[in-house]
């Protein structure tokens, strides 16, 4: 356990060292917040609600979802590149579990990004963009729980996709495709209640809405009471399922590595 904590700590320092990317990211997030703000302002210019959501409710949803989406992808890219350049063979000989090490690094990354990036930007959004707090403290607490599970699900899904790098060389394509599917089905772009019925039904059976939609819907009061608890329950099922699936796929992939000798 100690060594993994060490990995997380070192990753925080690495994060701090690449300050150019940090500022690029911060600036891009600010730009996206501006686009979101003006777009939805235009949408609401001659109406006061859409599907029962006010302008404030909508911007709150979209901004919180945008922040959460930054945390639902993980170290898939690192894993994919390790596989691609063949370093995975060396990594496997080292005295740690590669996946666990990557997840430890990911946690380090996310903690430091939360403190340096998401928190200050979030405060800006609260001050300047009419983003509101959850209506009750219970939904606030449930949101935190649900968001952590969403991040877990997203991280494991990301790693699952990355293992496909054993079979394809187009990592960029793989990543873009994953991003598109996730932002599409997870409700990161727009609340799922705005989608057509059939689309909502499909997403019920997919893991993506558990990543972003469920926590943010709890935050904004779209999901309350029993409904909210049921949604969190389904998140738990996905979390366990993806964890198991990753282990299975990883062991299948390991057999492939031995076949080709790394």
């Amino acid at each position, binding site marked *: 356990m100690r060594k993994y904590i060490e990995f997380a700590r070192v990753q925080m320092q690495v994060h701090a060292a690449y300050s150019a990317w940090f500022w690029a990211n911060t600036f891009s997030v600010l730009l*996206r917040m501006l686009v979101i703000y003006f777009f939805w302002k235009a949408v609401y210019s001659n*109406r006061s609600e859409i599907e029962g959501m006010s302008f404030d409710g909508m911007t709150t949803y979209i901004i919180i979802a945008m922040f959460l989406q930054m945390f639902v992808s993980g170290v898939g890219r690192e894993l994919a590149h390790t596989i691609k350049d063949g370093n995975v063979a060396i990594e496997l000989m080292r005295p740690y579990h590669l996946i666990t090490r990557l997840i430890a690094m990911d946690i380090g990354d996310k903690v430091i990004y939360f403190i340096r990036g998401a928190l200050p930007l979030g405060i800006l959004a609260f001050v300047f963009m009419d983003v509101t707090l959850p209506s009750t403290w219970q939904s606030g607490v449930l949101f935190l729980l649900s968001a952590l599970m969403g991040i877990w699900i997203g991280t494991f899904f990301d790693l699952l996709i990355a293992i496909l790098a054993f079979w394809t060389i187009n990592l960029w*394509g793989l990543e873009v*495709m994953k991003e598109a599917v996730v932002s599409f089905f997870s409700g990161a772009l727009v609340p799922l209640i705005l989608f057509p019925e059939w689309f909502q039904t499909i997403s019920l059976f997919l893991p993506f809405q558990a990543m972003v939609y469920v926590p943010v819907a709890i935050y904004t009061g779209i999901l309350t009471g029993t409904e909210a608890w049921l949604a969190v329950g389904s998140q738990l099922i996905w979390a366990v399922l993806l964890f198991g699936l990753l282990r299975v796929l990883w062991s299948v992939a390991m057999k492939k590595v031995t076949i080709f000798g790394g």
Partner: protein
Amino acid sequence: MIRYIKLYYLFCKQNLKVMMEYRMDFLLGVLSVMLQQFAGIFFVKIVFDHIHELNGWTFYEILFIYGIAATGRSIHHIFFDNLWTLGWQYIRPGKFDRLLIRPINPLFHFIADRLQQDGFGQLFIGIIVLGTAMPHLDISWGFMEYVILIIMIIASGFIFVAVNLFFATLSFWMVDSLPIVWTIFNLSDFARYPLTIYHKGIRHLLTWIIPYGFTAFYPAAYFIKGSGFENLALLTPVAAIVSCALAYLFWNRGLKAFTSTGS
């Protein structure tokens, strides 16, 4: 000139061979970009299921803007994608020196080094979107309209190229300017919607400083009656030429300032 065309053909042939070697990956790349673009369009569709117009713009007009942006960007994506890699794949590992000792223009060599297959997905979806939107616009499509549309799309593509070239050139001084290139590129997100919905400051920035407005909104506005931007729209090719010239001059300055990292 003819020599360069021949050379480009040879470069392309090599690139195509690589593409054909990995057919699955070609398909994956094309599909992924199509899916990415489709997600953006579906988003607009969902929003328009609940409203009729956005600041006076109809669904098909927004689609049209989107289509021009996607098609223009595909030119950039297919032929000029290597601009993204100047810092981390050429200058940092010391590979850029290789281009400087060849008897051809280094910028040409650098660009021709890669043909990006994934961009074809962007092209397909752009054409599909344009085809969907065009019949719904209040304009009769004659030969002249098509010619102007194609010129506008090419200009749009070259504005994307110019902006990326300009900021990639900073790599000559700072080794890798990718974070800056990426941030500026993200500004093009604004250009997917009518610029009229934004604050005046943003509009001026995207018109006169980083001319992403000319990659989609202004060219589209040319074809939409009563948009009030018909005259500015005519400047699109001019904007493309001016920004390409500026970027190229800047690139030449960068070349002079370049000192190798040594490999």
